[in-house]
């Protein structure tokens, strides 16, 4: 990892937290839908990097969002789960392409990229809403919230991803 990419990761980390807590936490579509776009951090993070450090960093990201939104540590739990599962999800989405030395997410097809992002978001939201509601044991409500919030998050994430994509040389 070059110092340049470290710098980009740090900036991305801070900006995504700020955007999440100051803008997206206050959207409240239909009263309860708040997209969680900070998951894009895990999507953008370099593939070949130290996994141990990546899991730790993701936990910290979730914890910071929790800290701002008074949600105990459920963002942290959900984020660390998808950080741990990310290699498996990538194998599922990109298959043999992953073995190439200079493979980047931007090299994959658009469908593969969106599938990867979608699986990350749905896994995250499943863990998040299960933990958020677990005291009432209301499966239907959990699924409803996962469905609608996932749709909003996926839509906005794809939008942001396209907006801030690195142009291919």
């Amino acid at each position, binding site marked *: 990892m070059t110092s340049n990419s470290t710098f980009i990761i740090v900036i991305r980390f801070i900006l995504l937290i700020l955007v999440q807590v*100051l803008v997206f*936490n206050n959207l*409240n579509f239909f*009263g*309860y*839908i*708040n997209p969680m776009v900070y998951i894009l951090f895990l999507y953008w993070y370099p593939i070949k990097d130290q*996994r*141990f450090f990546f*899991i*730790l960093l993701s*936990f910290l990201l*979730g*914890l910071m969002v*929790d*800290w*701002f*939104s*008074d*949600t*105990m*540590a*459920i963002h*942290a*739990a959900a984020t*660390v*789960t998808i*950080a*741990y599962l990310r290699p498996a999800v990538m194998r599922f989405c990109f298959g043999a392409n992953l073995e190439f030395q200079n493979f980047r997410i931007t090299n994959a097809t658009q469908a593969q990229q969106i599938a990867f992002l979608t699986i990350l978001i749905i896994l995250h939201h499943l863990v998040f809403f299960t*933990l*958020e*509601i677990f*005291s*009432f044991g209301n499966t239907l409500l959990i699924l409803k919230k996962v469905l609608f919030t996932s749709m909003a998050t996926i839509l906005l994430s794809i939008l942001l991803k396209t907006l801030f994509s690195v142009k291919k040389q």
Partner: protein
Amino acid sequence: MQQIINFILKYKNFLLYVLLMIIALTFTIRAQSYHNSKFFNSANWLTGNLYESTNNVSTFFSLGIENKKLVEENKRLRYQLFNQKKEVVEVEQLDSTQIDYEVFSGQIIKNSYSLPRNYITLNKGSSDGLEIDMGVITADGILGIIEHTSKNFSLVQSILNVRSRINAKIKNTNHYGSLTWDTKDYRTAQLKDIERLVPLNIGDTIVTGASSSIFPENIPIGVIENFEITTSQSSYHIDVRLFNDMTTVKNVYIIKNTNRKEIIELESKIRND
């Protein structure tokens, strides 16, 4: 020994995940019980200041509406004052040793109403005289109870929180129940434990009860929107439409019951005997 180290190295990612997950779950579960999320809330230096500075910008655009609200409230209070039957006590004559309630003002810098456990952050803290378990109200009705204070900020447990229990009654009667929230709609809260023999009407006003040591009696909460008898047939389950629009609240009053300490001491004495 070598094997143990090898095992740890081999599964270090999995072990790290398990460790972090346990930490997160511990935080989450421990915070379920009252007064436990001490360090882990948005009423601290960093988050408080960030919210306050962004709030300074956003309040600027709602100044007109807020002004209108305050004038309306002043008008209402004047009306009550001028039409009071009893001799009005002059403000200068109020003896600070005899008052029951102190009132502070504050502003909301972070609001939330879409989660099952909603918390609100205020821009006043312990250095302004705020303490845990003071009641927070607006011009329209009740808002919540202070759960944590830092030096300059405080965290309010909103009535839109599954852990919130507030003593409430039907106005002009002595039938008490407790106000809870079922997370479904931010415009309605639920009043429980009102006996089934009590005559109810849709549109009846619900106010705070007298057995709370946090709120004064008769602070408005909302009106009855709907009611039904619970399956156990012993009490009502009442939907209360809140007077407060929880999405747009801005200026709040914080109430300190000066007798609360004495009440709590007395109650704990009885419990210990």
